[in-house]
């Protein structure tokens, strides 16, 4: 459900875009204002058409099933209230509204958005198949359309399953999915809510909005910006691509304990669920390298997979990460939530230990990660006001045994001119400089909602990590990089640091939180405006990547952190 | 000592509260204050004085004899009739307010609240109209009148709440005529209430509860 953020994974998309394309610089001029206005109008029209509809993250089928308005479970959706958390913990089986046979627990959502960065991107964002579908800036896009199954299945079994069509990547996939069986037991003074759970990404099953899958910001542009900070394993990279099974217990409405294990999905399975891996990177790298040698360049050939790297580099770099989990990776979660009166306070921790086979390349070992998160959330909700304060700190130890070995092997192969059966090294660039790195991600945000309809949020994020030239890039390396040929996928930092920080502001209007229109009272909608301000990216502010491009034919422009400042306008409609 | 201190503290609290709230009451003019007092009575005794069934039954005041009401309110103050709640209520009433209140309630005539068991109404009627001479139970109607409307100090019983009548008759001697006061009119009822058994009391109260 969470908007898929660009970048992030080592084999991810946007951050690997080479500085090739040259666009016309567009200032924030009258014309763009016109566009903003047009989008606003479109949003309003969309709302008008879907006027008798409800929202996506406040899943309207839940509203129908429980007879409750969105605001019972959400402050500003998808942020949950204490009741929303309990609804989820009870396995989506709470009823009280319409019966399934009267209205099936199906809901839909559309998310038209408009994205503008302070300075245009070097190249237009592209989808994995290589077709540009957007401009270097000022993109209006029907970002996402989703279909939900949300509700009770039978007895104590319930599910939330989301199928999403992502316009930016032009594919349909199984988005956040969470299936639960729950029951309650009393052992003397101990009251236990016990649940069994299957989901498709770490923290998709979590009920607090401090964990990554449902954390702030709740919606972000899929088309911007060109640079974004690296993310820990638990924050990105596994949603939709793993199967987690676990059990949890919620004791005395207070103490939450959960254990789960995440398993790998086969390529076939991923394909079936719509995860974009038409060509897994190992396949792409090797086969295309072979193809490049076997076929001469044919400009304009409709199927770019057969084009050599030099002519269509994004084809290679945009392949989805096909790193896989080598074995079952444990996940745990502990949280203590205390509710008193209108207040709710949670203090918790979680851990995720992915065992990653980098690029699905066998024979070089496995990367071991250890992500430990600490989080706290405070909520004050009364009849008119709702305040949510969230803070999350995730520290990740990366034991990059596998990647490091692959890097050594690559260097060795390149240096010695040795060819393997495909004639290429396991990874296109080099491995990390260090076998062991760390990465820390800190997020804090506050949301205020007035009368359940108007929300304002401020978020702060801060990423720090260990110095690694090969992983995060360095000035020398970048300077020599002319295009993507030598890209190791991460040419972002001039100083080899992941350190980034920024602020996010979000304002939204939710017209149907207290109940939708009479014809379709379960409708929900959110019209929002968010602005992301980058304080620093990859260890710097001005020319942080030590790289730049010529544009408008002559002047040399370097990348500055604030270039990525993003204005994002969205209309979120679910029904 | 401790108990005394606590009581003292509580008393102080009450007094402080009373003085604080007295201002509130006095702000309102005479007529308004009287109306506020009427509403105050009706909060418990029903919006038409028809009585109210709470944890304790609140008796019907509608149509009640003013003299009886006055006498009872005085009895609360003088602790001849023991009721801590009504003691507090009664002792803040000025004679003028009291007279106006009793007149006001006397003129109300809502239908009875009802809600009594109906199976023994016949027996109740017999006891009310004729008494049970063998059991030394005098006919109630002799004093309270054939329609149970009462007379002067003799209360109206018609339409009185079943649980209230039951409670009153059952605990007569423990609630009324307390403090060794000799001329309390409640003494007249002592023997009768003593002679009535629970079933008879219930029947009688049920009969009265439906009487208009």
């Amino acid at each position, binding site marked *: 459900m969470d908007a898929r953020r660009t970048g992030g994974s080592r084999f991810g998309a946007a951050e690997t875009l080479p500085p090739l394309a040259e666009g016309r610089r567009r200032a924030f001029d009258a014309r763009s204002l016109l566009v903003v206005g047009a989008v606003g109008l479109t949003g309003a029209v969309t709302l008008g058409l879907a006027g008798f509809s409800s929202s996506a993250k406040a899943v309207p089928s839940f509203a129908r099933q*429980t*007879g*409750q*308005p969105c*605001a*019972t479970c959400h402050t500003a959706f998808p942020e949950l209230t*204490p*009741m929303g958390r*309990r*609804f989820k913990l*009870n396995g989506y089986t*709470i*009823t*009280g*509204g*319409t019966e399934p046979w009267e209205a099936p627990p199906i809901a839909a959502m559309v998310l038209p958005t408009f994205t503008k960065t302070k300075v245009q991107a070097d190249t237009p964002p592209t989808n994995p198949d290589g077709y540009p579908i957007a401009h270097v800036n000022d993109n209006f896009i029907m970002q996402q359309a989703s279909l939900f199954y949300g509700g009770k299945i039978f*007895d104590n079994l319930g599910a939330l399953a989301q199928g999403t069509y992502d316009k930016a990547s032009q594919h349909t996939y199984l988005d956040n999915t969470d299936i639960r069986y729950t*029951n*309650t*037991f*009393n052992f003397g003074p101990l*009251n236990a809510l016990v649940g069994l759970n299957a989901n498709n990404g770490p923290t998709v099953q979590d009920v607090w909005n401090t964990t990554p899958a449902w954390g702030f910001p709740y919606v972000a542009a899929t088309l911007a910006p060109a640079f974004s900070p690296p993310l820990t394993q638990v924050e990105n990279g596994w949603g939709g691509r793993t199967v987690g099974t676990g059990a949890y217990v919620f004791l*005395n409405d207070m103490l939450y304990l959960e254990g789960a294990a995440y398993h790998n999905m086969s390529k076939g399975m991923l394909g079936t669920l719509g995860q974009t891996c038409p060509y897994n990177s190992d396949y792409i790298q090797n086969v295309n390298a072979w193809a490049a040698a076997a076929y001469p360049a044919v400009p304009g050939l409709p199927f770019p997979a057969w084009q050599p790297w030099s002519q269509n580099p994004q084809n290679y770099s945009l392949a989805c990460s096909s790193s896989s989990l080598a074995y079952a990776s444990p996940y745990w979660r502990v949280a203590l939530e205390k*509710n*008193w*009166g*209108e207040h*709710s306070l949670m203090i918790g921790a979680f851990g995720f230990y992915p065992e990653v086979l980098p690029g699905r390349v066998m024979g070089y070992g496995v990367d071991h990660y250890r992500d430990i998160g600490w989080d706290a959330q405070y909520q004050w*909700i009364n*009849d008119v006001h709702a305040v949510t304060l969230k803070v999350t700190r995730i520290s990740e130890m990366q034991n990059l045994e596998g990647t490091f070995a692959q890097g050594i092997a690559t260097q060795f192969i390149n240096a010695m001119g040795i060819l393997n059966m495909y004639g290429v090294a396991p990874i296109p660039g080099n491995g990390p400089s260090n076998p062991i790195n760390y990465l820390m991600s800190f997020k804090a945000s506050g949301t205020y909602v007035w009368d359940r309809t108007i929300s304002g949020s401020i978020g702060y994020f801060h990423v720090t990590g260990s110095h690694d030239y090969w992983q995060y890039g360095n000035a020398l390396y970048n300077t020599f990089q002319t295009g993507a040929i030598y890209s190791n996928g991460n040419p972002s930092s001039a100083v080899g640091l992941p350190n980034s920080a920024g602020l996010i502001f979000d304002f939204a209007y939710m017209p149907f939180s*207290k109940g939708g229109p009479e014809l379709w009272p379960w409708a929900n909608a959110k019209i929002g405006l968010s602005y992301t301000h980058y304080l620093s990216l990859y260890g710097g502010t001005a020319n942080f990547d030590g790289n730049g491009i010529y544009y408008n034919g002559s002047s040399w422009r370097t990348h500055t952190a604030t270039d990525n400042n993003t204005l994002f306008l969205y209309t979120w409609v679910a029904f | 000592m401790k108990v005394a201190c606590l009581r003292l*503290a*509580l008393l102080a*609290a*009450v007094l402080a*509260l*009373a003085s604080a*709230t*007295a201002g*509130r*009451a006095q702000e309102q003019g005479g007529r308004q204050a009287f109306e*506020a*007092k009427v*509403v*105050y009575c*009706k*909060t*418990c005794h029903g*919006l038409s004085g028809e009585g*109210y*069934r*709470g*944890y*304790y039954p*609140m008796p019907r005041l509608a149509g009640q004899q003013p003299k009886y009401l006055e006498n009872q309110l005085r009895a609360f103050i003088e602790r001849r009739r023991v009721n*801590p*709640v009504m003691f*507090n*209520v009664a002792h*803040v009433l000025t004679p003028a307010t009291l007279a106006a209140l009793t007149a006001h309630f006397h003129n109300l005539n809502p239908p009875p609240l009802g809600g009594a068991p109906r199976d023994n109404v016949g027996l109740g009627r017999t006891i009310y109209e004729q008494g049970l001479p063998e059991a030394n139970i005098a006919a109630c109607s002799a004093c309270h009148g054939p329609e149970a409307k009462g007379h002067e100090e003799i209360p109206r019983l018609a339409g009185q709440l079943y649980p209230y009548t039951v409670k009153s008759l059952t605990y007569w001697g423990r609630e009324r005529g307390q403090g060794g006061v000799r001329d309390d009119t409640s003494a007249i009822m002592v023997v009768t209430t003593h002679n009535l058994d629970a079933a008879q009391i219930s029947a009688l109260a049920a009969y009265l509860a439906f009487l208009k």
Partner: protein
Amino acid sequence: MNAHTARSRIMKRTSAIVAVAVIAALAATPGQTQELPVRNCTWCHGPSAQGSGAAPRIAGQREQYLVSQLHAFHDRSRDNPASKQYMWGATARLSPEMARDFALYFSSLPAEAAEDGDTGLAALGKVIYEQGVPDANVVSCIVCHGPRGEGFEAIPRLGGMSHGYLKSRLEQWGQGYHASARPMPLVARTLSADEIEALASYLSFLK
């Protein structure tokens, strides 16, 4: 019989015992009848119905009161903000039979005192609760709600309800909400903010 078969027999027996125990435990789970989806209520009112947040304790509440309130939510005469938001929807499709069943079930659960009021105000609250403030036309609560706040028939049990809930109810009566719940609007109108605070504090400790 050799040692191996003996061990396997013991294991089989053990697993059989475990299975039986698990089934028995599941079967013995109280209150989870198919017909009565109590979790629709405990979702908000807390797993043992002791109340949570705006949702009051319903465990041990008087059955007739619960029924009457469910009806008041259903016909929307109880229109407090929280009622409107949560309970109107929750009772929109509630049948009278189910309302009765819920009331019977929750009234039979043991109640715990919230004890979340201001202990310093409890003594004053007790005085108001038991005696009212006749000068200010504040009636005594005890006459309807009983000496331990136990309630009577459709008059609710108040003892041990949470301070916040009691306070907001009294305040909202004064503001004109739930006007049909006579005589409470009359009662609440006469109470000052301090008196409400004291009453709610006292009652939260009353068992």
